[in-house]
């Protein structure tokens, strides 16, 4: 099947035309948060006791998460150091919702940077790339940039400082993965890129699912809820792409895919869970500013 890149671009533009409702879903809560931020600033900040309690709870949760997680978080080897950092007085100095939103921003910063790097590879963003993969990487990077802007706007609306740095726990692992990717062949590299993207997307989705029961501000919840499903959709597509690449069926990564050619099990590879897990969620304060 020939891929018509012009048609694909048209589809993306068409979908973006129907974006107005979705934009409203995030804009309205952000507008509603501005007053809260002004109130917080007028009080010269947020409750330090509440922040310390929240940081302590997250330290306990981080320990439990480290035992369970099998991915990036477990591989960092710096979980203990982060736990120590979270418990330090310097950390417990901003509002709990702000901390959660800063961590979300730090994940988005890393996601944008990772896709940007991936797009410099000839087999992801260059002339040798599969058109669907290239379009997906390009569009997904833009969507993460939108998420970053939304989380940062929510942070400042609540009186906090926006996070512009990547999540410190995941940076070394991503750097190591990128080094491996640059040394790999095109076929092996494409699989490594998809694997890395999949892990980051899952961390983002699981973190935001987990954050829904931690956030206290109604509008911060609305913003997060409008983003977590999108990350889960990225995960679904990446699972499908990964399965096709692993099976040597990269040519079948087309839009639409050749459904009649695919084995029956391909129909369930994109959404393995009835309930979205949180075992790989980043601790809610991991990417917060001190």
């Amino acid at each position, binding site marked *: 099947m020939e891929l018509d890149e012009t048609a694909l671009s048209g589809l993306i533009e068409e979908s*973006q035309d*129907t974006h107005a409702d979705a934009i*409203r879903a995030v804009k309205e809560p952000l507008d509603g948060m501005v007053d809260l931020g002004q109130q917080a600033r007028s009080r010269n900040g947020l409750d330090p006791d509440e922040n310390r309690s929240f940081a302590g709870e997250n330290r306990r949760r981080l320990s439990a998460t480290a035992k369970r997680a099998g991915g990036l978080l477990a591989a960092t080897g710096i979980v203990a150091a982060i736990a120590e950092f979270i418990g330090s007085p310097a950390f417990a100095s901003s509002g709990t919702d702000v901390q959660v939103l800063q961590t979300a921003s730090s994940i988005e910063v890393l996601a944008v940077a990772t896709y940007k790097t991936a797009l410099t590879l000839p087999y992801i963003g260059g002339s040798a790339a599969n058109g669907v993969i290239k379009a997906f990487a390009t569009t*997904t990077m833009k969507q993460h940039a939108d998420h970053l802007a939304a989380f940062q706007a929510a942070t400042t609306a609540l009186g906090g400082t926006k996070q512009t740095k990547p999540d410190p726990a995941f940076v070394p692992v991503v750097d190591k993965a990128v080094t491996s990717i640059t040394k790999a062949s095109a076929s092996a590299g494409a699989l490594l890129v998809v694997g890395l993207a999949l892990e980051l997307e899952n961390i983002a989705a699981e973190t935001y699912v987990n954050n829904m029961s931690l956030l206290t501000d109604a509008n911060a919840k609305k913003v997060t809820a409008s983003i977590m499903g999108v990350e889960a959709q990225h995960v679904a597509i990446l699972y499908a792409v990964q399965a096709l690449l692993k099976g040597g069926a990269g040519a079948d990564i087309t*839009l639409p895919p050749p459904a009649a050619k695919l084995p*029956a*099990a391909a129909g369930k590879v994109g959404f393995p*869970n009835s309930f979205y897990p949180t075992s790989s969620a980043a601790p809610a304060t991991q990417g917060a500013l001190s």
Partner: protein
Amino acid sequence: MSATDPVSHISDAELLSMTRDLDALHHDLTLPALKDSLSEWTEEIRERTAAGEPEETEQRMFFDRRKFLIGTGGLAGGALLAACSSSGKPASSPSSSPSAMAGGEGQKLSGDLQVVAMAASLENSGIATYMAGIKAATAGKLGTVPGAVVTFAETAMSQHQDHVQAWNSVLTSSGKQAVTAVDSVIQPTINTAFGKVKTVAELAALALMVENIAGETYQNGLSVIKSAAGIKTAASIQPVEFQHAAILSFVLGQYPVPNSFTGVSSARPPSDYHT
């Protein structure tokens, strides 16, 4: 490999081995966590009921019927909107008709339990849609149906069954009846649309509408559910419905992740549930 080869190199066995670890993780970690959340939620509801705490049902009516219908029309087209507006008996119905699945209405539910009942009835509509689609495919009414599409429908239906079981466990643990009825507002729309389905693509488009409504309903539910445990439950389901939607869009040749943010304009309001 040429894209015109008749069979993909990837096999069922390879694909199943890829998902085995995820299945194990799901059963070892996710399901126990969900069970804990459901128990915690039920306990909170019992405590609020025992304390005579009033439920703020009126404040939860964020979306009126008209707004919902407009949203649905955007997803499914004008014909469906007109069918739903007539709001009466379904023109035709999937195999699991409303009457066959009736149950759980008239319990005078409010607050979180009303949200739960709305969710359960919407899941029942999703199950009925997939069930009817699989039956039509099996009967050869949709032409040649790829095996991967059948697997998708069976898996998505199974996941919706898991969801409705979760919702109904909250109801029954709170001393209420399980909801086995379909969503009485959306079902006529589904039935009318299903009556026109002649191809796999048309069935996929209908399923896409249902999945997007489900995802948006849970997203809205996250703003109205009081209990933290209830929020955990709804939050664990919303992304799964949107994943179903992404795969359906992909199969239909539409860009699978069309928006940076998911909205709530097509969400089903808890107030529509027949208490």
